[in-house]
Structure formats: C-alpha cells, structure tokens
C-alpha cells in the first residue's frame, strides 16, 4: 500500500504548557480520506501544525509521498492544499485578486478551475474577503486548495461553524476529489457525522496520543457497543472489551467484533455505534 502521508512517533512539547504530542503515528493510504477526531485540546491542530512545519516538531518523522518535507522542499508543498480554521487570506483581497496572488505562487495554478469552483460555490469575484461570510471564506479556501493540482488536502476544522447545506456541498467536493486514486484528504473535525459520511479511516486522538486508527466501515459495521447490566459486565473477559462506561442503569462496553461478542455472550444486546459514541467511550470510558 502506498501512502500520501505517513506520520511516525511525532512528538511536540511547549515550554509554557503541560500539553505534549506523544508519539503520534498514523498513515493515509492514497485515494482515501482520513478523519482526525478528538476533543478540544486533544492535539489535532498541533499535529497538523507539526505535519506542515508551522511549528517545529521535537521528534518523529513526517513523510509526504515518501519524502520528508523541509522548508526548501517547495515542490512537495505544490502538492498540498491546506485549509485552516481561519480566514486564511488578507481581508482586503478579493477572490479575483487572490487568483493573481496564487498564480504567482503555484506553478500549476489553474485559473479556470478556480473560477469554476467559485461559480460552483456561489462566491462573488470582486467582493473583499472580509465581507464574505464564514461559509463563503471556507469555500474560498477550498477553491484555492483545489485549483493547483494538489494531491493531498489537509483540512483543519474546515466544516466547523457551517450550516448543514454548505457542509453537505463541501463533503461532496471532498468525495469527488478522492475519486482520483492518487489523491487523499486528512480532515480534522468535531462533526463526526461528516466523517461518517465521507471518511475511509478515522484516527482518534486524546490528550496528545493516538488511541485508535481504524477503517470507518469496521468501526460502524464490526465494532459494537454492548449494553450490559452490572452482573453481565462482571462476566466479560477484559480482553474482549476495548473500553467501558458506567451509565445510570447499564454499562456500555465497546467491543471490536460485535458478532463474535454476541456469540460468546448470549443475552447481551450489542448495538452498532456511531463515531460519536465510539469516541465518547474511547475518551471518557475506562479500559
């Protein structure tokens, strides 16, 4: 399997904070979308910053298309499209002027593709960026990311704060992007329902540590959440549970193989879990 992005043992500490990225490792196969989820402050943005060299990493390796990216490796950055959870561009620019800026930056800048993305997203050409809504600004950033032949999109909370209609439009664009098997997306999001729709893999991060990377289909169709009474819980072999959480009248247990668990523990109901429920159990549950 070839990977667009491979992160191995990434570490990062800050002098004025107790937070640290602790040996973060995961990889994104070509042609896939990786969802990157975790609570606020879990380390998603720090990981992305360390991947993109906007902060210096303390250790570990990050390879894009098999190569480490140093500051001088501008050819690698030609292949990246990045959207941060911010305006990203100077507010006094218009989308039209932005195209002239990007034409002077990217060798493969495609003004026609950019124009067609702007039209598709309904973004006016000659309005100052500071006058655009947040949704429009994010779509503008996406139009830029899609218009220079990028092979990997890195999106930090790109759909946060957007209404469901705009989000749905954007998710469709992401799916179209990875129709070409050489392209991939790393997308952090709080909105796990978005990731359920489009992601191929999900990486969970908690307190700076990756706690699970798994195929989304496996999470939804093979993993399960057993709803146990206290007595039933006592009978479960600890090796058969990934995490558990005590609730008012039952204990939810995250299991890796729902069907095998049902066969082994007759009488315990095992539901399919949503990404949200699985994340809650992994993060707030005990092991």
């Amino acid at each position, binding site marked *: 399997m070839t990977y667009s992005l491979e992160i191995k043992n990434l570490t990062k500490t800050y002098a004025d904070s107790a937070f640290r990225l602790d040996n973060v490792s995961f990889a994104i196969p070509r042609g896939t979308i990786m969802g990157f989820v975790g609570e606020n402050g879990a380390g998603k943005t720090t990981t992305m*910053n360390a991947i*993109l*060299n*906007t*902060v*210096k990493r303390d250790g570990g390796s990050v390879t894009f298309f098999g190569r480490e990216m140093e*500051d*001088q490796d*501008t*050819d690698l*950055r*030609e292949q*990246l499209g*990045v959207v*941060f959870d*911010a*305006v*990203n*561009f*100077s*507010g*006094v*620019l218009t989308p039209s*002027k932005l195209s*002239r*800026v*990007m*034409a*002077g*930056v*990217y*060798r493969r800048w495609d003004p026609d593709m950019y124009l067609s993305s702007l039209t598709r997203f309904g973004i006016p050409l000659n309005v100052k*960026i500071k006058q655009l809504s947040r949704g429009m600004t994010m779509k503008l950033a996406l139009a830029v990311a899609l218009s220079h032949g990028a092979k990997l999109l*890195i999106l930090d909370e790109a759909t946060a704060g957007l209404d469901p209609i705009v989000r749905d439009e954007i998710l469709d664009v992401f799916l179209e992007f990875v129709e070409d098997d050489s392209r991939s997306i790393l997308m952090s999001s709080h909105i796990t329902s978005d990731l359920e729709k489009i992601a191929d893999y999900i990486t969970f991060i908690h307190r700076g540590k990756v706690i699970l990377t798994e195929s989304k289909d496996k999470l939804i169709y093979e993993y399960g959440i057993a709803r146990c009474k206290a007595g039933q819980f006592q009978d479960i072999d600890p090796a058969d549970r990934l995490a558990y959480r005590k609730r008012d009248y039952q204990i939810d247990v995250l299991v890796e193989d729902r069907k095998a668990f049902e066969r082994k523990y007759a009488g315990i109901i095992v539901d399919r879990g949503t990404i949200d429920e699985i994340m809650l159990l992994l993060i707030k549950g005990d092991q």
Partner: protein
Amino acid sequence: MKGLLINNYYSMQDNIKLSFGIALAVVLIPLFASGSKVMSMIIAVQTFVFASNMGTSLQMDETSKWNKWELTLPVTRTAVINAKYISFIFLITMGLASSLVTLLLHGFIGELDVNAVIDGYLFGLQLAITSIAIVYPLILKLGAEKSDVLLLTAAGLSIGLKMVIWYILYMFNNDINFNGRTVGIVSTLAALLLFAVSYLISARIQRHKEF
C-alpha cells in the same frame, strides 16, 4: 515569491492610497508657512508617511492568519522575509516618488532650495528606513497587535539614533550641526546598515518562528 509581493501590495493598497492622500495634503502647507525648512520637512514627511502605514496591513495579515497559511505555500520562510523587505523598499520608493510633487510645486514658484531638498530626503529616508528596520523584527517576534505603538517608538528611536550620531561626530568636530549634511548622510548610512541587520534578524526569527 512574485505571488507574495503581489499579496503584500494588495494588503497595503488601502494604506498606500491613504498615504498618497496625506502626502498630497502636506503639499498645501506652504500656503500657510513658507521657507526652505518647511519644504525640507514636507519632503521628509512625504518620504516617511508610506512606511508609517505598514502596521495596519501587517495587523490584517496576522488577524486572518495569512502569516501561518503562507508557510504551507510552495515558498521558503526566507522568501517570505525577502518579499516583506522588498515591499518595504517599494513603500519607501513610493514616498520618494510622492515627494516629487513638492519639488515640482516649489520649482514652479521658483523657491526650490536644493540643499533643503537634500536634507529633507536624508531625514525622511533615515526616519523611514530606521523605523521599518526596528519595527518589523519586533512585530515578527511580538505580534502586530501593538504595531502602531511600536512604530511611534521606532520613529522616536530613529531621531535618538540621529542624536547619538551627531554627538559622536561632535566629539571629533565642534562645527558639526545636528541638522547639517554630515549628520544627515551618516544617519542615513547608519539606517541602511540597520535595515540590513534588521533583515538578517527577521530572517532568523522567521526560520525559528512557530505559528
């Protein structure tokens, strides 16, 4: 780097327009006060005013997080700094160009004092170059939020630098005048040196800066 230069120009465009407005407005001062000292001061103001407006566009870039985002572009960190300093030189050149109006006006009414013109340019250049040289590395290190205060302080420091240079020269020659040509030339040369040092410091800060 071409794209970065275009971006810097667009970011500064509104300020350039405002600066042109101020530069043209001060041309009217001779209607109320005349003399070669006034003309000299007008030229200095016109040369400096473009540089004095750089803070607003830097603030805007910081608010939008462009400074962070541009690092994901296919440009090196050094290219970012190169583009900034080329843009500053462009700003100072705009200031020099706008002051031509004053020369034309005074030439037209026959009151063009060449010595006052040279002194005005030397003072304006020294003020503009020193201010930028001091402020930009500080903004890079501390953030653009207080850029206006920093710029005022830097303008004060650049006058302080001129005083220090005058004092040093005065120790060797009692005839040296604070407003004289020698102090003007040495101060401007010192400003150019400071600009070069400022570039090196900014490039170093940028290489290690985390966004």
